[in-house]
């Protein structure tokens, strides 16, 4: 082991730029087939084929939202039952304290509220946002990722990554430009 290995890698990865979504998807598929796993694509709008190509499909959010909704529902029931049976029971003409049909609207609203909040927070947290700094922003061309260009990133952390070989591989993919990403 020489000293160079303990230093941080000189590059974060290689970023290939494409002009069209079709080129990006084709390139992402080939890169994934070539065995690269720490790859990502960047596009100015959602492309389902792109995340399929890099083999990403995270289904955890469905469960998070379901859990949020159930929590909301249970809190709604618990709050109203507790208020009307225990904390502040009011006897109006002998009507039952546990008048649950009248607790449905608030329970419903709280179910939706908790589910929606967990959906948004879940998305933000799983995506690791807010993340104001990311190495890809060091590439000046990257500002087009939110506008009109499509990018494919191969991270240097990928076990298969080798600066020269990966660069040669990316050159076969029809990219209009390839940039090195500074860490």
């Amino acid at each position, binding site marked *: 082991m020489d000293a160079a290995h303990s230093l941080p890698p000189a590059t974060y990865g290689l970023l290939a730029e494409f002009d069209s979504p079709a080129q990006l998807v084709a390139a992402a598929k080939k890169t994934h087939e070539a065995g690269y796993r720490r790859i990502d694509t960047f596009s100015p709008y*959602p*492309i389902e084929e792109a995340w399929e190509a890099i083999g990403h499909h995270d289904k955890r959010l469905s469960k998070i939202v379901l859990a949020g909704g159930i929590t909301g529902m249970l809190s709604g029931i618990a709050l109203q039952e507790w208020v009307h049976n225990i904390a502040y029971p009011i006897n109006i003409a002998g009507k039952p304290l546990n008048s649950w049909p009248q607790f449905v*609207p608030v329970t419903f609203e709280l179910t*939706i509220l908790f589910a929606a909040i967990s959906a948004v927070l879940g998305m933000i947290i799983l995506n690791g946002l807010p993340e104001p700094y990311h190495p890809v922003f060091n590439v000046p061309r990257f500002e087009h*990722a939110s506008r009109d260009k499509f990018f494919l990133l191969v991270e240097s952390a990928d076990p298969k990554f080798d600066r020269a070989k990966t660069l040669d591989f990316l050159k076969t993919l029809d990219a209009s430009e390839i940039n090195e990403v500074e860490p």
Partner: protein
Amino acid sequence: MIDFKPATYQPAPLIEPGHTFTSITDKIGGVVLGKYTPLSWFVVVSIGMMLMGGLGLAITWLLIKGTGIWGVNQPIGWGFAIINFVWWIGIGHAGTLISAILLLLKQGWRTSINRFAEGMTIFAVMCAGLFPLVHTGRPWLAAYWLFPYPNSMGVWPQFRSPLIWDVFAVSTYFTVSLLFWYVGLIPDLATLRDKAKSRPVKIIYGMLALGWRGSARHWQRYEHIYLLLAGLSTPLVLSVHTVVSFDFAVGIIPGWHATIFPPYFVAGAIYAGFAMVLTLAIPLRKIYGLEDFITMRHLENMGKVTLVTGLIVAYGYVSEAFFGFYSANKYEGFMIWNRMTGPYWYMYWSLIFCNIIVPQFLWIRKVRTSPLGLFAVAMVVNVGMWLERFVIVVTSLHRDFLPSSWGMYYPTIWDWMTFLGTIGLFLTLFFLFVRFLPMISIFEMRTMAPDAKLEGSEGH
């Protein structure tokens, strides 16, 4: 197979041909980042701010003197506050319908109108929320009347009351609409961050964009929850006006106590909301030259939705009258007869004129495809829907069971100043939004560009 469509008629496209990712981004983003502000923007915001000044004055005086400055009194204990509340909250519904329900129904034409319709929802709900808050006269006490929190008096809200359901429905609606709107904005804020030239502007949009970089992993989760939020908003929006209608329907007053109220209110809300979307969209596309994105196809489709929901509302009016007479209940029968021929007859018949007769012009394609014609119909519907709430609230209350307790309702100058003030608040907020945030979803418009098509698939 025979094609019954007349050969001459081609619906307008959803986006004018020739647009690329770059041109879409520059056109919509340019409205926000460009230096140019149209003169009409200043005119509208000045009018809005003037009306808001009146609102500030009216609310200040209300807090000093109390609700006695308003025209409400027995027997009409619910006046402008509830009329305006229901009117505004109804307007909001079209935004959610466009952003959520049309998304689930895969209606591509929602894309260029959803963003500002959602903005309209948020600002309309803000205007609506103001009324229940100030109608308490002492809003600082409203906290423990409305929200369940452990207070030193040990009292809790009455959850069996539709008014509390309303608090939960409206506040949930506001929160979820705001979240939906913000989530939709994140990728566009990233675009503005990357496009902005000046550093402070970059920093502001950059903070709001949360560091969004368009990663495929992010997009997948994003699309996932966007669909879930649409699925959650759909029952929510239907529940909100249902709960608002319970404020009336749970009471025993003839004219309120009707099972038709929830669906009739929801249809009325969507009707009013689409009229308001048209009212805003037609001048906006003109002022900012967005005819390429908000095409005649969008306007025509909105005209069709207005016509359909208008017919549902008409059905509601007819059934109300039918129930009144068929019930053989003399109070119900009197109520509907009094609505048509009593002291407020002109309100009722103006309402029928505005909400049933005028929208029938939308059957004619010439009217549906003329911005001016649509704008005129939409304005009439806006007025009509306000009249509807006036008729429901005032004519039901002013002559109920006991002739000795009959009365009339006279709104005061403070009522009018508050109402017009909320219109000013709405206009100001809406035009500030148009200036500082993209009024059309840029990233969703990119999916409509011809370049977005992948071989062998439909694109998105």
